[in-house]
């Protein structure tokens, strides 16, 4: 079920009503309701894969208990290995099997040998990367002794499949989310309103920003051979906003929805495009994944404790694995590697933790130096996103070669504006091409201004401090709703991160 669909608009109030009005007496029944709702939510897409979630849940539940009961360290280690092998095994089969088969065939044929392996027609279960990491964090924490295993199966199953964040995160740690299933949830008006507001902002990011940018991005990246360097660069900027709007929009809706049920999920995006260097960007982008890799891969590998060489090695490993997590394609691996190489100079010069606080915390505008850093970092990220968005490595190289050519200094190709239609207000005295470009720029500028003024909050419109009266705030919310309606249609677009 998609957050931006009519189905979800009907599903959410029903579950909310049952949760707070019918089953509010018992926490157990509330958890069962959440579990059932989560399975309905997931099964709406493909009920067959519910068995996969159920299997992972049962396995890790019993492994968690068995780890504590095991006396020998070897036994504990064996149980942890079993959990990792099974969970990663599912992930490897559904997500990476064909990639490995194809890569082996390519590698062997490169050396003149033919290998007869057959790739399979495998459907990737939505959200498998997310819930696999979530459940793995549980068994690892139990093994480490930082978390007590739960004996409450319903709570554990609800934690694994919690519908707001099941298919695209944030990837929650058991230590944060699981205890919330044990406690009686109280309805707090302020939290619920906050949740609604965050859902609204998430929908705006998805439907208005991401889906609009997607029209240009799909056109430019899909027909890159016909466009010049400046157009491809423009397309890359649109992609940067598309993926941000899409993914952070999803996270906002997930966090807001969870809040309606009395749950507190962790912030997943902290205004990453206002970062002053790539290290700061990675502290602000997809935080739940970055911290997962930090805690369960980087630190176990030794982190930066074993000297510079180990720190460099571990950084490269983490970024490459993180890239590979996104998808079974060499482009993602190279995307991770490029990020690592952009990050390493900061690490080696010990400047990777220079920008911890959000930029210009106590000021309205950034200093010139900060502004330059933000722009440079953003452009760097935009260029790196090209590798992420490209279909293949050769496609990525083709895109880079076009950008780093004289074509970059030409005006964007006019075909782009003729092929697309993005209109809200008809400025009849301007040509349609310029209208569309202007409107898109205005839209992104307004969006960034709102994000800038809300950068000290968990999401941009959390406080709406610039709107003093209730009347103005409601007007603002209704304006957002109106814009969302204008950009919606009967067929909601999927979220990009579903494919990961």
């Amino acid at each position, binding site marked *: 079920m998609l957050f931006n669909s*009519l189905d979800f608009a009907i599903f959410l109030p029903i579950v909310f009503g049952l949760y*707070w009005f019918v089953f509010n007496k018992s926490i157990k029944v509330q958890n069962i309701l959440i579990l059932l709702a989560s399975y309905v939510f997931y099964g709406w897409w493909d009920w067959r894969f519910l068995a996969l979630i159920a299997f992972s849940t049962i396995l890790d539940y019993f492994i968690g208990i068995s780890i504590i009961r095991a006396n020998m360290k070897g036994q504990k280690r064996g149980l942890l290995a079993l959990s990792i092998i099974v969970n990663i095994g599912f992930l490897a089969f559904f997500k990476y099997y064909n990639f490995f088969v194809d890569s082996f065939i390519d590698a062997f044929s490169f050396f003149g040998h033919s290998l007869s392996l057959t790739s399979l027609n495998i459907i990737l279960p939505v959200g498998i990367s997310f819930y696999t990491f979530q459940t793995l964090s549980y068994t690892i924490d139990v093994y480490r002794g930082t978390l007590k295993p739960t004996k409450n199966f319903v709570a554990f199953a609800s934690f694994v499949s919690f519908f707001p964040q099941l298919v695209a995160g944030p990837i929650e740690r058991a230590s944060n989310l699981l205890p919330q299933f044990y406690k009686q949830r109280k*309805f707090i*008006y302020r939290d*619920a*309103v906050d949740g*609604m507001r965050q859902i609204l902002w998430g929908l705006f990011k998805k439907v208005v920003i991401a889906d609009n940018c997607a029209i240009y991005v799909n056109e430019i990246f899909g027909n890159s051979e016909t466009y010049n360097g400046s157009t491809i660069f423009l397309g890359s900027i649109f992609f940067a906003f598309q993926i941000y709007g899409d993914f952070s929009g999803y996270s906002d809706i997930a966090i807001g929805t969870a809040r309606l049920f009395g749950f507190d999920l962790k912030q997943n995006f902290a205004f990453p495009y206002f970062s002053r260097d790539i290290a700061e960007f990675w502290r602000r982008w997809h935080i739940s994944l970055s911290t997962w890799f930090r805690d369960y891969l980087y630190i176990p590998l030794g982190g930066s404790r074993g000297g510079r060489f180990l720190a460099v090695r571990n950084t490269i490993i983490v970024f490459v694995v993180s890239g590979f997590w996104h998808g079974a394609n060499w482009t993602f691996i190279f995307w991770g590697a490029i990020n690592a190489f952009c990050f390493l100079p900061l690490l080696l010069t010990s400047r990777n933790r220079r920008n911890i606080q959000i930029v210009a915390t106590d000021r309205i505008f950034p200093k010139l130096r900060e502004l330059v850093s933000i722009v440079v970092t953003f452009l760097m990220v935009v260029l790196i996103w090209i590798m992420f968005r490209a279909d293949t490595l050769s496609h990525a190289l083709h895109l880079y070669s076009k950008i780093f050519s004289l074509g970059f200094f030409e005006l964007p190709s006019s075909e782009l504006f003729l092929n697309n*239609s993005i*209109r*809200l*207000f*008809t400025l009849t005295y301007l040509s349609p091409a310029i209208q569309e470009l202007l409107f898109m720029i205005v839209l992104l500028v307004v969006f960034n201004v709102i994000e800038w003024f809300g950068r000290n909050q968990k999401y941009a419109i959390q406080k709406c401090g610039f709107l003093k009266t209730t009347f103005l705030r*409601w007007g603002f*919310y*209704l304006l957002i*709703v*109106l814009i969302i*309606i*204008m*950009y*919606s*249609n*009967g*067929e909601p677009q999927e979220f990009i991160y579903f494919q990961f």
Partner: protein
Amino acid sequence: MKRFISLVLVFSGLICLLLVWVFSWADGHSDPYYLRFTTSKQSDLILGTSKAAQGLQPTVIDEVLGTSMFNYSFTVGTSPFGDVYFNSIKKKLNKRGGKGTYIITIDPWSISSKRLDPNDSSVFRENTGFLNKVSYVNLNPNPFYLLRAYNGRFGDLIEKQQQWYYLHDNGWLEVFAKIDSISLINNRKRNLDSWIESNEGKYFFSKYRLRVLGEMIEYLQEFGEVYLVRLPVSEEMLAAENKLMHDFDTRITKIIAKSNGYLDLTERHENFVFHDGIHLYKSSGETVSKIIAEWIQQHRK
């Protein structure tokens, strides 16, 4: 909690008002099907695929027969004869409106299926189409259509864009096509040639569809008179139809017997202009509508 529920209700109410306001802008320029789901239940219906949707003009028929015809035809992809279309017709039909007149246009395509097993209705294309998604066909504005089936952005309902069609209130889809010799060649290439290329040899006669057509005629007979018409098409399209089903007339003999009459206009194709080789140009559609109406009138005497 009460405060929150009140707030949500008020806000939801305002959202609904906004939606109704945006939806109320929808008209015949917005979508080639939408208005057919916004009118009240109808007593006189034109049924069939896009050939009927574009070709048969209710006002022309009404002038002759004194009816109040409504064109409830769609496309061969969404409204071939089958349960999906039949159920939608049942919803649109005014069962208390007295004796009605029903013109059903038939051709080989609408009783065939683009499937190797043309009788397996569970995999029919129209199952995922808008006729199956829209449960209420008489609402204005119709959120069920707009929220589940409308393809464009809702903003486009307000900001009108120039379209190649206009859907009239009576369900007739007027197409603005150029019919100079060059445009005719280009349109034909784009529509007829590509249709034949992508569909020839892939459609198979469906006993199931023919059976449902029979049931549909029997059902409509309870509420009035049912006339079957085979609309004219260009020579090339006729050849393709004959290739698909050379014994079409034989196959529909039993069906004809259930109706009040059958008119085959395919032999008169040379008298008409087809803007894309498949669909009648509006002036020819006017003539054909008149021919059909006069034939029905004659038949009644």
